[in-house]
């Protein structure tokens, strides 16, 4: 591979890792700091991706669209729609034990998938939405991928900053207190439901924006284009490897996990074509086993939660 080839692969790699890192930051807000169990990440991701696609595209006979909104609006809208979804799912579940949220997020992810699969007027069904605009392509030309990476990094920086600021504030202290001992927090008069809801919604906002970036970067989305459960699972691994409740660790975890995931693809792609299904399944098995090993042997991940002064 030439130097420039290597470089462009690196940019490509980092962009995807970065989009996943945004998801992982969102999950960290929910699970890491607030102790919330979201295994429907794919649902929030899809809502963000479809929102961005529908808003930014020029009119199409196949599905809803033609709003031609600028990317900054589409990113915000993607985050907001995803956040609204989180809010709705939080209402029945956040007063109850953590499993209910987990089960409900699976359900909501499934329903989102059903909607985008069945409502052709909205999303062109299984055929998906293609030719999603690539922002600033005209301006940056051959440096488009690099500029997109820069955009992803800016988004990461913003979310990282907001997360850290939030978590170090009195708000974050209460959030962690709730995670440690709900009863004590309740007894000291904290509105546990509200704090949890805020973390859930903020996390979902990040996931929605991540979904929008994914849509713009790949230019094509469909209900099955990315394996929902697999995607969700990879984000979880990023969080667990990096270290739950440590934003920096989670970013590192995202890069490592994405490296391993794409690395296994490089290896399995050398297999003959008739083994392609087996190879894909084998990759998931590998990464699944990897997760279990980490869970059993490295409970705090690479970067354990930092202790803040009370």
């Amino acid at each position, binding site marked *: 591979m030439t130097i420039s080839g290597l470089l462009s692969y690196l940019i490509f790699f980092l962009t995807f890792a970065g989009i996943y890192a945004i998801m992982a930051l969102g999950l960290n807000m929910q699970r890491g700091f607030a102790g919330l169990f979201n295994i429907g990440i794919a649902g929030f991701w899809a809502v963000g991706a479809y929102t961005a696609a529908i808003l930014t595209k020029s009119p199409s006979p196949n599905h809803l669209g033609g709003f031609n909104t600028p990317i900054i609006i589409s990113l915000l809208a993607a985050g907001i729609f995803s956040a609204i979804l989180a809010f709705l799912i939080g209402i029945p579940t956040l007063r109850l034990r953590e499993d209910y949220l987990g*089960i409900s997020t699976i359900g909501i992810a499934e329903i989102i998938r059903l909607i985008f699969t069945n409502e052709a007027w909205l999303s062109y069904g299984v055929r998906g939405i293609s030719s999603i605009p690539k922002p600033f392509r005209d301006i940056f030309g051959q440096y488009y991928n690099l500029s997109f990476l820069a955009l992803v990094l800016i988004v990461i920086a913003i979310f990282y900053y907001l997360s850290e600021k939030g978590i170090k504030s009195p708000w974050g202290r209460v959030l962690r207190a709730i995670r440690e001992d709900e009863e004590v927090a309740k007894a000291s008069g904290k509105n546990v439901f509200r704090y949890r809801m805020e973390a859930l919604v903020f996390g979902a906002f990040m996931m929605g924006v991540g979904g929008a970036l994914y849509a713009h970067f790949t230019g094509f989305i469909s209900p099955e284009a990315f394996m929902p459960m697999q995607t969700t699972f990879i984000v979880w691994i990023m969080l667990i490897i990096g270290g739950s409740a440590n934003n920096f660790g989670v970013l590192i975890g995202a890069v490592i996990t994405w490296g391993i995931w794409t690395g296994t693809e490089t290896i399995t792609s050398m297999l003959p074509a008739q083994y392609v299904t087996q190879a894909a399944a084998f990759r998931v098995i590998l990464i699944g086993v990897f997760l279990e090993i980490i869970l059993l042997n490295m409970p705090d991940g690479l970067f354990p939660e930092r202790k803040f002064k009370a």
Partner: protein
Amino acid sequence: MVLQLLLNGLIYGSIIALGGIGLTLIYGILNFGHFAHGDLMTLGAYLAYLFTVQLALPLPFSFVIAGLLTAATANLLDKILYKKLEGRDSVTIMISAVGAALIIRNLILMSWGPQLKFLERGIEMPLVFFDGLLRITRTQIMILILSVIFVTAVHLFLSKTKLGKAMRAMSDNTALAKITGINTERVIFWTWFMSGILTSSAGIFLAMDTHLIPEMGWNLLLPMFAAVILGGIGNPYGAIVGGLAIGISQEISTMFIAASYKPAVAFAIMILMLLVKPSGLMGKKV
């Protein structure tokens, strides 16, 4: 029409109920949602496929062996994962179950591929009743009869035997069970074992009624959880009632909404329950 939907719902509901019994007992006793339960169901079905179709062994024999192997897998998961994670927060244990689910499903995908498979060859002619208002195949009749037998056996086991009562006791109050001198390790072992047998049977019934695909059990996870929550977590009788209620509602719902949205019905019922009475119809724990 309604009659046919009721029947379909009853069959589908029995399958959810059989899986749900184990799910709810594990929930009550070990205090976590077992997200790999659906994929254990798939495993049972594919093992039955291996023995009956690929190795041409008699179905009853395959049924039993598949059940035992699925039960052994459930015990193995407990031994190498869940037991080792004991004392960690429940989200950690649940995500390890999600991991186990993905591993099992992809092992199945690797071994048998993504194509539809059938346990029985050929199309079975249904028996027709009431001028075509009700059609039922012999397989479906057998599924219903076997489900009734299974549920009765579970009931007798839980209400008459020492081990069964200990299971219910542990599901009620684990700390008190320990204080009472109940051998909790033993109870946990047999709970996994029984859940494995039941969920494998449910998977085989589903495969007999329809077909096999690697996602078949995962797709039933949400209805099973909905049944468990509807009936009250930890309550096996609740899971049976909940399973039938979910199954029948899903089928009946097709009179009012597009059939493609059927899976959403279980979810809607579950959310409604969480809003109105989160402890379930017959339950206690929240």
